[in-house]
């Protein structure tokens, strides 16, 4: 099964109380099967944008998935298409990793007919194995380390195998092995199922190596958008992060060196 619907965002606006965080933001159609990384400084509005696409934040403008307008779609219908992994990790909760993942499936129907208990269990175990934490399946969520919790949280999002997967800093707490493992996994899922993955990352080298497209956000505006080599340049980094950087293309991505910070 593969999906063909593009996601097109036009004139998107999002505000907290009276503060406009994102105004009139438009993005060229995002393709199914693509891994798109959203980068940018703290408070740029990355989380706000992701939550807006997830339908968790009131927005203006249009978000078109294929021919369907997401903006005013009921949360329950949207949840069949889009899943969001929050930046904050799950709180103290007396559920095991496996129960959390099964709970994510049981929370609401995903595709028409609901799964049998057996299928629920198999699906959840598959995802846990692919994320690479089978040894934690029966461990309580509140006994995990920070990185383990992040992996459990990722599994809760992946298990719904949505058309559009939104991940807010999914690897920020992970060790080297798991950073790579997660990036390879989402790329594989994008290729296998035509899932569209939009993720927020702070590690530029990883973003450059494992994304099809990079969107650079600063102060609620798109500063650059394109292939990693197009979007991540010394100029962009200087403007967005206020750093002195060298960026050189490499066989597998970009070599990025940050030499200093700009102070004015």
């Amino acid at each position: 099964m593969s999906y063909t619907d593009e996601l097109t965002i036009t004139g998107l606006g999002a505000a907290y109380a009276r503060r406009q965080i994102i105004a009139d933001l438009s993005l060229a159609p995002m393709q199914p099967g693509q891994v798109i990384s959203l980068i940018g400084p703290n408070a740029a509005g990355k989380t706000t944008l992701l939550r807006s696409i997830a339908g968790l934040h009131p927005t203006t403008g249009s978000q078109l998935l294929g021919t369907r307008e997401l903006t005013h779609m009921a949360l329950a219908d949207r949840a069949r298409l889009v899943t969001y992994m929050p930046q904050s990790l799950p709180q103290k909760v007396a559920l095991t990793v496996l129960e959390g993942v099964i709970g994510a499936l049981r929370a609401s129907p995903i595709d028409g007919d609901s799964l049998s208990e057996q299928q629920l269990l198999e699906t959840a175990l598959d995802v846990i194995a692919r994320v690479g934490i089978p040894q934690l399946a029966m461990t309580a969520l509140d006994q995990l380390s920070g990185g383990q919790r992040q992996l459990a949280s990722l599994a809760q999002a992946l298990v719904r195998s949505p058309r559009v997967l939104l991940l807010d800093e999914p690897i920020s707490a992970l060790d080297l092995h798991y950073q790579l493992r997660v990036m390879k996994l989402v790329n594989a899922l994008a290729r296998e199922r035509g899932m569209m993955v939009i993720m927020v990352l702070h590690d530029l080298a990883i973003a450059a190596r494992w994304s099809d497209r990079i969107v650079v956000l600063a102060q609620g505006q798109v500063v650059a958008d394109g292939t990693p080599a197009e979007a991540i340049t010394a100029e962009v980094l200087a403007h967005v992060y206020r750093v002195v950087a060298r960026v050189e293309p490499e066989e597998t991505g970009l070599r990025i060196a940050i030499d200093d910070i700009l102070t004015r």
Partner: protein
Amino acid sequence: MEPAKIRPLAVVKEDALHTPAPATVPDHRDMAAAYRRTIRRRVLILLVMLVVGIAAFALDISTGPSPLALRDVWSGLFDPGSLTPPEVTIIRDVRLPYALMAILVGVSLSLAGAEMQTILNNPLASPFTLGVSSAASFGAALAIVLGLSLPFVPGDWMVPINAFICAFASVLLLEALARSRAAGVEGVVLFGIALVFTFNALVALIQFVASQEALSQLVFWSMGSLGRATWTNLAVLGLVVLVVLPFSMRAANAMTALRLGEDRARSFGIDVQKLRFASLLRISALAATSVAFVGTIGFIGLVGPHIARMLLGEDHRFLLPASMLTGAVIMSLASVASKIMVPGVLLPVGIVTSMIGVPVFLALILRRPDRA
């Protein structure tokens, strides 16, 4: 000054590099089997709780000024011919309604507490701690002191009815606050705590101006007692539980998902606002009705769900029924204790629940870290 040069320690521990990789990874079948075992264990725990509940109920009936053997309790309920008429009367007309009331109140308050803790994401939430019980006391106090009456309502129903109205109003306030996006969950909890203080002050004020006779009635009411259990009261509370329970169970999966975080639950398609509102309605019906009949009984709504959670975790398909059962067991045992703690005196059960509840609660909290 030049900082002292630090000589690096051995950079790589050679033997550490050669220690074998840790234990093998469990495969699907192991994990599935382990999961099924936990489910079976939970069902078993629920069954054990049910048996303990029935035992506590029987013990409750057998305890009293004239102690009865458990076998007589059985006969009294199912085979009255084999007992003397006074014994049958004691069992059926005096002890049975009390014991049933203990069960129903324990079930209602504990279920209400479990739901409240989940939807407000606060382990300290309960009808007692968030002002619902205090509001009921206030309502009762008003009715007792002012001698309120309504047309077509028998006099002795005024106190519970007024208690219910006030308790319900306090939950509606909490609801309104929960619905307005401004306050947030913490706001609701703080508001509930403010309600406790407000209503307690108002009750104190009423006590201050009350007549001697009204005062003693009021004090007795506010201590919480099963003494006003009648078949009508039991039928009303039983009906409330029966009506509410299916809705609670239908919301169980959504509540489990809510434990994973509000944003996450919403991204699963759960309308959290609606879930909260519906749950608060159920809580108000359960808490207001039970408080109206038995007065303020604290800690059941707090301790019951906590014990259930420790035994069974937070899958609400198990947590909700388990909370009801623990609530029933604690209430029945408290009722037994209220009859035997001071020989010859029937203590108000509310005093006992607090006296037992607080230390038990503290013990549970303190041993929490090594929970499996």
